[in-house]
């Protein structure tokens, strides 16, 4: 177990180093003078020289990388060209909004996927199974930005039940926050629900055929007790892994969803930074996102081993 954790952590560190090199190189591949890129188009010669001195742009590239990586490790990702705020401060302001959106969408996805997946597996090859599988296929195929637009059209424009866009902090108005977040969370959650439902169904079918389930039945336990007490718990282990792997997809989905519903989160920050050519923000956000993805997957691997102590990692992961 300890050996696995050390090996897994070492691979994550190597991956993080490679990610930082890719991000660093990416910004330097943008055509033109990096100082001009970082300072913005309105900077004068003195401003450019200041940027060059500050970021050591006259130094050799490896030296520049090590300095940049060192600052990034200390949480200094530079300043936004647009607002002049430190990138980390901007991210810290926007991230909780996206985290709230992601958490709500995961809750919605789990609430839809687990009952549907379990039902499809228990009533395998029936109309319920067909319905759940069809819904999952539609969930995977529907473009989330179109689904978002259709929900706005129906619930906001036609029925007038929910606000079409905007954001209110939860602490300011819990009900206002939920009324504005429910549609984006649903849009983001459907794709995830489709994936999780398929995984739950497959995993549950595997578990229902296991010896210990037959034993539970033969002991005289009622069907519901077997399913709820034995089968569901074990079938959820692979679902946790898929949930971790979907973190990246959730982040990608948040970019579009926040754009449609005008939620001022992390995803919208990326799009705004791209359009205003705010490269330090683009660079910082991409680095933070990729690093978070690596760390989430590390945590998923660790939680996997904690959830199921039978798992042996000697064969490599």
């Amino acid at each position, binding site marked *: 177990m300890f050996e696995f954790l050390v090996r897994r952590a070492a*691979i994550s560190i*190597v*991956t993080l180093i*490679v*990610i930082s090199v*890719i991000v660093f190189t*990416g910004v330097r*591949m*943008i055509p033109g003078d990096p100082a001009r890129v970082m300072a913005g188009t309105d900077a004068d010669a003195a401003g450019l020289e200041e940027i060059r001195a500050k970021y050591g742009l006259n130094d050799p590239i490896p030296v520049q990388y090590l300095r940049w990586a060192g600052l990034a490790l200390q949480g200094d990702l530079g300043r936004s060209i647009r607002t002049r705020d430190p990138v980390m401060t901007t991210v810290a302001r926007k991230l909780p909004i996206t985290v709230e959106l992601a958490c709500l969408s995961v809750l919605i996805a789990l609430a839809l996927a687990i009952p549907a997946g379990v039902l499809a597996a228990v009533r395998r090859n029936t109309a319920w199974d067909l319905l759940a599988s069809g819904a999952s*296929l*539609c*969930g*995977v*195929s*529907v*473009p*989330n*930005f*179109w689904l978002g*637009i*259709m929900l*706005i*059209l129906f619930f906001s*424009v036609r029925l007038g039940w929910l606000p079409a866009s905007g954001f209110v902090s939860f602490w300011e108005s819990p009900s206002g926050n939920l009324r504005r977040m429910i549609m984006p969370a649903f849009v983001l959650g459907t*794709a*995830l629900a*489709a*994936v999780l439902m*398929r*995984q739950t169904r497959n995993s549950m079918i595997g578990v229902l055929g296991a010896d210990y389930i037959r034993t539970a039945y033969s002991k005289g336990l009622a069907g519901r007790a077997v399913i709820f007490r034995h089968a569901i718990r074990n079938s959820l282990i692979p679902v946790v892994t*898929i949930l971790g*792997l*979907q973190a*990246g*997809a959730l*982040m*990608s*989905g948040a*970019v*579009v969803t926040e*754009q*449609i519903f005008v939620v001022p989160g992390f995803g919208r920050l*990326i*799009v705004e930074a*791209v*359009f205003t*050519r705010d*490269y330090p923000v*683009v660079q910082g*956000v*991409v680095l933070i*996102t*990729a*690093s978070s*993805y*690596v760390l989430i997957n590390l945590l998923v691997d660790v939680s996997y081993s904690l959830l199921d102590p039978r798992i042996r990692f000697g064969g490599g992961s």
Partner: protein
Amino acid sequence: MSPTSGRTSPTFGSTHATVGVLPARAAAEPAGRLRRGWRRVLRRPASVVGGVIVLVFVVLAIGAPWIARTDPVKADWSQIRKAPSGAHPFGTDDLGRDNFARVVWGSRISMQAGVFSILLAITVGVPLGLVAGYYRGALDQVIMRLTDAWLAFPFLILAIGLVTIMGPSLTNATIAIGLGATPTYIRLTRGLVLSTAAEDYVQGARALGAGDVRLMGRHILPNIFSSLLVQATVSIPIAIIAEAVLSFLGLGVQPPTPSWGTMLNAAQQFLESAPWMAWWPGLAIFSLTLSFNLAGDGLRDLLDPKDY
């Protein structure tokens, strides 16, 4: 682009693409194999319908100039935001352009982006995966660590980053989507090569003196082709949605070129007065990706070696 095929999973890593490798003996009876495969596909009518709808979209994309006779780009100020009618079955947009013509021409853009981006991913990813899996060792480690790092970038964010560097256009969006899908093909090919290289027929060819290039090109690659094809059917719908998303965000196809993503972007501002502007391009994306996913399921059945 995802798990699954997920728009989902807009990661291109797919749980579907675990189809193994064709055993050598399977090559001996291709006709019987195909017959059995077709029987399996025909047992799934949804897959047949999916395949037919994909073909309809291919015909629309190729025959756009003949099917949609109205100019999809030309504005008509007397026809602004007209509801669907006999003259304009899908209505008109905010510049009076015929939505039907724009949806039909948009299929060309979507197909082009979907197919070419995945071809790019295959062209880059398969040779890298082949080399990594065949030679193993330090080269394998370097390629796979780079692949891991590449996979850590959420697909859309990677595509946005690349388009930022290269500038927004259809070509650059296609390249960005293709590069985003590449790691999946590296991983898949490497895994397939590892299992295929251990097969007796590969070892036999090696014993007979076949060189590395011949082994990879004549013995390994043809035997992993079906799995790569299945993965492509999973990846193309994801790439189609990705192109629409990039165009929707203004990072792909630029107006006035008709694209389903840019049409939805324009439609967003007129949801109250002209909701039909949002219906058709969205339905087109949904039906095309759904059809690809259904047809992909059928293709998986057709090529699934577990039944041989």
